[in-house]
């Protein structure tokens, strides 16, 4: 009964049809949309419309699988394609694959990955200044950011550390460039903040904080704030050298310092600490000679953090760690290059996926999608 007729044509496009076509298109992946621009003039204009772009993005935000992971795997020998795979972190199954020319990664380094967008830097020969790109692999479009204006020739020789963040209030992407000039290894002389909305850099001076910054270290981005490590280079305090996390609030363009807890084991301080994301919370891994502690920042009252110690982690596990999951599971590369998960709560190990080809641990990088 239902299959009595082929869809009869649209003699002219009714408003309802336009609404429905727009709604269907807004649920298509980027690659299909690029093809659909070819269907007709009307479809092409729908897809190119800026309002459509934001609806499409909203759908992507609502529908993305919260537990998915972007895994950057090294190319196979003789293969010229690097492989970006979106995997489900529950079972590590492949959800989608993007192949990228290896050369891209030879000359570029990833600064960050947010909302399907890579921020990458490319070194410019004979200069410390890098070119910064935003790159959307699903439509294969890259955008180069304007170069930072240097006021002084000294600045050209500075070391620059980049950070990528997303302002969910204004729907803006920001890049922070911290300039370390001369012997100032730990204190940036000034900061430049790029906003995609204004498409320009803005210079900001920063006042001295309770600790100095560590450039090029691990950074995490969570709910509009970027966190990285601070170091107390002058004094070796009982807290050890890593005394704070430095945070940058992407929404307000403000910097903050978060004091870390005393992580000690038999009166010995942790020799290394770094930030990780545990579900929707900022956490800290503190490494000792024989094992690691995981601390979670339960809340932040003004500038005062409330830290709680969660568990111990085997160091071997940490070296092979791919990511920390919301539910207290750690994904790591197991024997024979498979992927296992370890549940901190019940201390159980699960084999998620046996990978047929050998993946070198050090070259696999993961991001939360």
């Amino acid at each position, binding site marked *: 009964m239902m*299959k009595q007729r082929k*869809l009869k044509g649209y003699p002219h496009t009714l408003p309802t049809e336009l609404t*429905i076509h727009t709604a*269907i298109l807004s*649920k*298509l992946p980027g690659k299909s949309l690029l*093809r659909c621009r070819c269907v*007709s003039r009307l479809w092409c204009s729908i897809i190119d419309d800026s309002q459509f772009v934001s609806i499409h993005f909203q759908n992507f935000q609502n529908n993305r699988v919260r537990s998915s992971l972007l895994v950057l795997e090294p190319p196979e020998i003789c293969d010229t394609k690097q492989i970006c795979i979106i995997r489900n972190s529950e079972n590590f199954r492949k959800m989608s694959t993007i192949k990228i020319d290896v050369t891209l990664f030879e000359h570029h380094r990833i600064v960050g990955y947010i909302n399907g967008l890579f921020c990458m830097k490319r070194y410019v020969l004979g200069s410390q200044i890098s070119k910064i790109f935003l790159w959307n692999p699903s439509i294969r479009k890259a955008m180069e950011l304007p170069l930072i204006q240097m006021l002084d020739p000294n600045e050209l020789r500075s070391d620059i550390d980049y950070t990528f963040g997303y302002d969910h209030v204004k729907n803006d992407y920001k890049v922070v460039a911290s300039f370390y000039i001369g012997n100032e290894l730990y204190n940036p002389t000034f900061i430049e903040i790029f906003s995609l909305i204004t498409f320009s850099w803005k210079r900001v001076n920063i006042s001295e904080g309770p600790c100095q910054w560590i450039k090029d270290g691990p950074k995490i981005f969570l709910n509009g704030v970027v966190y990285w490590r601070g170091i107390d280079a002058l004094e070796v305090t009982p807290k050890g050298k890593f005394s704070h996390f430095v945070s940058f609030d992407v929404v307000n363009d403000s910097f903050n310092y978060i004091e870390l807890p005393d992580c000690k084991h038999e009166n010995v301080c942790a020799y290394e600490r770094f930030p990780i994301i545990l579900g929707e919370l900022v956490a800290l891994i503190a490494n000792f000679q024989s094992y690691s502690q995981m601390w979670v920042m339960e809340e932040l009252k003004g500038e005062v953090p409330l830290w709680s110690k969660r568990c111990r982690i085997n160091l071997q596990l940490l070296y092979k760690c791919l990511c920390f999951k919301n539910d207290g599971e750690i994904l790591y590369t197991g024997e024979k290059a498979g992927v296992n998960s370890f549940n901190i709560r019940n201390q159980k190990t699960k084999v998620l996926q046996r990978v047929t080809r050998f993946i070198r641990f050090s070259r696999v990088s993961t991001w939360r999608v």
Partner: protein
Amino acid sequence: MASSSSSSLSRVVVKSSDNNLFVVNKKVASQSQLLKQCIDNMEEKGTNDVILIPLSNVTSNILTLVLEYCEKHADFADDDNNNQELKQWDHEFLKKFDYATLNSLTMAADYMVTKSLLNLCCQFIADSIKDLTVQQIRQIFDIKNDFTPQEEADIKNENAWAFR
């Protein structure tokens, strides 16, 4: 669930474009914002009579399907859209139809303001056309290609990789 007081309606009659009548229980009808609005308006006026709502844009075939969907979903709470059983049912429900029926169903969902059905249909159609060629998509939606061959080639070349 709101308990039905003596003054409120428990059922409405909906008339399709081909003049068939459907008696629909209020809870089921409320899945459609259009029907719910009609019911609310009548209740405000204090009418006790069974009301007749004519839907000039929806045929009996399609109305039957919309009501089947509303009946199923009336059993679940509004925030229960992630319920696995319901999701499975939705998928099985839409799987049976050809594009023509899906299209009419989508239009009816839009007209009757049944947002979850509209969303579901659009997602289902999107999923089923995402790997099709441009020509196949034109056929399904019966869209005439109004590009010149040169224009079409230019658009293709802009993102040639997407057509491989």
